[in-house]
């Protein structure tokens, strides 16, 4: 049983382990779909998420996870769909300075660079030692 102040019970944590972003990625890959994994690789100033935050985009534009929401996330989603189409990774610069008067919580005034990487079943690396 969880102690005082705990956010999750042990059962909740077990469920979360089986519902990680990687479980969802594997499900899509097993179905033969190509995905784009967007990762924040650097930030400057105030940004909604930290370096390492990930978001997965499907070919249909479905999003798993978040890199902060708002217009920046929409830009990344659009680029991600292009990455899925071309299967070529790219880094995009998301400038959150543009629309400082917006009510969006994602407008933080900073800049983040997001690496968008295509994943598909054939792209899987071999286990070490099998080469």
């Amino acid at each position, binding site marked *: 049983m969880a102690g005082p102040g705990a956010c999750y019970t042990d059962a909740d944590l077990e469920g979360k*382990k*089986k519902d*990680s972003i*990687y*479980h969802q*990625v*594997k499900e899509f*890959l097993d179905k033969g779909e190509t995905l784009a994994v967007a*990762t924040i*690789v650097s930030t400057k100033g105030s940004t909604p998420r930290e370096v390492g935050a990930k978001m997965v985009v499907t070919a249909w534009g479905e999003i798993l996870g978040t890199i902060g929401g708002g217009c920046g996330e929409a830009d990344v989603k659009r680029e991600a769909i292009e990455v899925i189409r071309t299967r070529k*990774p790219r*880094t995009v610069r998301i400038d959150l300075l543009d629309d400082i008067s917006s009510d969006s919580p994602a407008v933080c005034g900073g800049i983040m660079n997001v*690496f968008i*990487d*295509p*994943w598909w*079943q054939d*792209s*899987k*690396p*071999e*286990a*070490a030692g*099998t080469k």
Partner: protein
Amino acid sequence: MTSLSEELVQISEQGAAAVLATVVEVDGGAKVESGAKCLVRDGKVVTETIGDARVIQAIVEFVDPATAP
């Protein structure tokens, strides 16, 4: 053969710690491609697509400085 996604799922289910390094930028004539990956767990390479031993060694040393010569 174990895929990267299977390894990541296993690590997640075990609640284990690991590092997935991804090449995000390449300058000059390096033969490593952007998007190449290396999964390191317990100081050992589990799976990789980088293909350059020096780069892999640098990643392992960065992840676990105790492995540096």
